[in-house]
């Protein structure tokens, strides 16, 4: 037998169930998923540090020294790639990546460090060419210049024997350097 009173109770029960279901649904959405670690600024920072550290290799006379500038440049450029991606993740995707402030600080520091290596690379190469300097087979120009005690020294005199007991030099090695030590 279906009377109005029992119908009203049924409706109330349905609403109660629906209300409970809704609250449970809201409750499960209140805790967001854990944000991911943004590793790029750290990798970029380490790469930029290594790029700078490579400069220490110039004090070690090795055969690979000529490659060091390129190694440093490559490391610095790679650092930039990482830091740009890291900063983008920190600034634009901070809902996905955590530690936004640290990432930004590390990113900016890395930009400066990588920049130093890149500036050093191009600065060290700001040299005039030597195409018209004496080439192999050409004659070395004469000169007479003062030594550290003010005595004049000519190119000819350098080929003279130091004394009667030592033989005359076979060759002279001229080392032109920048100066201003």
């Amino acid at each position: 037998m279906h009377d109005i009173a029992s119908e009203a109770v049924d409706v109330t029960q349905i609403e109660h169930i629906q209300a409970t279901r809704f609250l449970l649904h809201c409750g499960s959405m209140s805790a967001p998923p854990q944000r991911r670690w943004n590793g790029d600024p750290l990798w970029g920072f380490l790469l930029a540090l290594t790029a700078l550290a490579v400069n220490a290799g110039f004090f070690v006379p090795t055969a690979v020294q000529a490659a060091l500038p390129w190694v440093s440049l490559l490391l610095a450029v790679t650092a930039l790639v990482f830091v740009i991606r890291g900063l983008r993740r920190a600034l634009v995707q901070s809902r996905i990546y955590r530690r936004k402030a640290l990432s930004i600080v590390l990113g900016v520091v890395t930009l400066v460090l990588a920049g130093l290596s890149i500036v050093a690379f191009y600065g060290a190469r700001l040299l005039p060419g030597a195409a018209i300097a004496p080439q192999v087979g050409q004659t070395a120009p004469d000169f007479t210049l003062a030594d550290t005690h003010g005595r004049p020294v000519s190119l000819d005199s350098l080929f003279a024997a130091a004394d009667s007991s030592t033989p005359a030099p076979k060759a002279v090695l001229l080392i032109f350097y920048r100066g201003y030590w």
Partner: protein
Amino acid sequence: MEKRLAEFKAAGVVPVAICVDAPQVSLNLSQKAGYTFPILSDPDAAVIRRYHLLHAAGGPDGHDIARPAEFLVDSGKIVRWNNFTEDIRVRARADEMLAAVQRLR
């Protein structure tokens, strides 16, 4: 370079450095670093120009200096080997220079 000086001497090579620094400046450097090879002073870069190595305004305060270069010159004053670095951080190694001397024989 000073460390390898005995090897250069044994190979019959006299190393000589040249730059725009005044003799006193080079003397200080030489004494501090313990160099025994001659360092010659080219204050107005006249010889540097003669060798076409001028780096105009390349020094501090815009002074003219030399771009780095090495020449191995035989007793006939002919250049037998040279080296012009593209990066001031990369120095010529004594090994390279000694190898060039060996080829003189």
